């Protein structure tokens, strides 16, 4: 097996200073292999999104080691190589697109930042790849629906042809029918481009749909790591995970 694309050792992330210090992540170890799709599940405040933000350089204070593709990360500065390798899709597509930039502006700026050439052709291809089509190129975000915006956000993340995509609850702000579209799009893109996903969600069904392996988080710690098969069979070590699975099933049962 080749070296893992992402390796996290004893990650701790906190916000503020004592006495108001909040420890969001309290010592997490994670390894994600190349080409894998890895899920992080947990309730609100369990620290799952914070791990992604620390990885992306958006959390100011953290300790431990994070290694991406052999490159060890420090503080909040990230190298150009990191920006090419790792991209992120944010939770709320209404907040992650600049309200005064057209789709064209968003993508062309991204492509330019990533040092790409042949920008016109690439924008067209990206829009096709995320299922939007070229007609959307010159629209402003307010002329797009939530699902369309999230597709633009995915296109932006893919523009630099990253190897590792961080997905921060990419569907939780969307309608159920649109959620499925975006999940299928993400699943297809992963196969086509051989991407590695690290996906955060509070929804076991979403994780089960997209991820092969997952970690369950509670109170800033990983309480369980299992495979998608374990999840489907209900095999879990910790009581919390079993509760979570049961809750998710009874909810799904009620809906059906």
């Amino acid at each position, binding site marked *: 097996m080749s070296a893992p694309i992402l390796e996290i050792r004893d990650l701790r992330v906190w916000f503020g200073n004592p006495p108001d210090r909040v420890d969001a992540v309290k010592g997490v170890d994670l390894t994600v292999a190349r080409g894998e799709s890895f899920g992080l599940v947990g309730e609100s405040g369990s620290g799952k999104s914070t791990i992604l933000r620390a990885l*992306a*350089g*958006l959390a100011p204070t953290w300790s431990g080691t994070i290694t991406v593709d052999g490159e060890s990360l420090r503080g909040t500065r*990230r190298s*150009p190589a990191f*920006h090419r390798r*790792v*991209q*992120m899709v*944010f*939770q*709320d597509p209404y*907040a*992650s*697109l*600049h*309200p*005064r*930039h*057209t789709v*064209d502006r968003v993508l062309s*700026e*991204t492509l330019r*930042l*990533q040092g790409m050439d042949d920008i016109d052709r690439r924008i067209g291809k990206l829009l096709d790849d995320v299922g939007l089509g070229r*007609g*959307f*190129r*010159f*629209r*402003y975000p*307010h*002329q797009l629906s939530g699902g369309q915006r999230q597709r633009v*956000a995915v296109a*932006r993340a893919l*523009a*630099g042809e990253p190897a590792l995509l961080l997905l921060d609850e990419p569907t939780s702000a969307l309608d159920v029918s649109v959620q499925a579209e975006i999940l299928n799009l993400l699943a297809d893109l992963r196969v086509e481009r051989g991407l590695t996903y690290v996906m955060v969600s509070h929804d076991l069904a979403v994780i089960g749909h997209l991820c092969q392996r997952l970690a369950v988080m509670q109170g800033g710690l990983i309480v369980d790591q299992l495979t998608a098969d374990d999840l489907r069979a209900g095999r879990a070590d910790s009581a919390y995970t079993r509760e979570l699975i049961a809750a998710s099933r009874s909810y799904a049962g009620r809906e059906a």
Partner: protein
Amino acid sequence: MTDLSTRDWLLSAAPTTRRQARLGALYQGWLTFRSNRLAMLGLIILVLLALMAILAPDLAPYSPTAQNLADRLQPPSARHWLGTDALGRDILSRIIWGSRVTLFIVGTVALISPIIGLLIGTIAGFAGGWVDQVLMRITDIFLAFPKLILALALVAALGPGIVNAVLALAITGWPPYARLARAETLAVRNADYIAAARLQGAGSFRLLVGHVWPMCISSMIVRVALDMAGIILSAAGLGFLGLGAQPPLAEWGAMISDGRTYILDHWWVAAMPGLAIFIVSLAFNFLGDGLRDVLDPKGGAE
């Protein structure tokens, strides 16, 4: 394209070129603006003011500085529509020529102050930490003085004159813009779209100019339009105190100052330029209100 009207082309939800998208957004804004009658009234008045300033030599019936002591302090009549002042100069002509001075003041101050304010405010808000502290304490120092007093001190130091008055107003006028720009910056600096651009490797300069400024500029424009009236009044105030425009230059504030002596017996000498200041200030306020509807990103449409 041939079977589409220009209007449909502009309002298309799926623009096909960069230019069409930009023009479409502008047209949308224009439609919103046009539906505000008072704003349109303000715009029309200001266009007329601009025309008046450009065509001053052709419009003014007399020279603004020609004295005729035989005809001094004449009430409004067919010969002198708005009467004459203490030196027998035609007030209408002076108001028409004075519109140039007013536009010069407004234009210059409205260019300098917001730009200083935008730079200082966005840098302070975006950088945070000690940069923010230093810049905002400097802003506080400027804010601690009443604006006109500070302008007076500056003009007194630089020497009276219209250019110095404008400079003084511009230098004292930026702190509110800096505050506004900083507040807007703080609201957007942690937005996901900034984080996304940062994650693409965008540097601070690019983020500031390309991402933060567009979010600040609309509220700045509105604020400038609403402040125009205040700028005109401050310039008039300086002129009134004798520190702005120097005689015989026709400036509205200085004209009121001249008319003060005769205000009880010859009211029109002070009232006519006062009316001009009033109308133009009101027009700028209407315009500012209309622009707020168009430009406010929280307002929805754009």
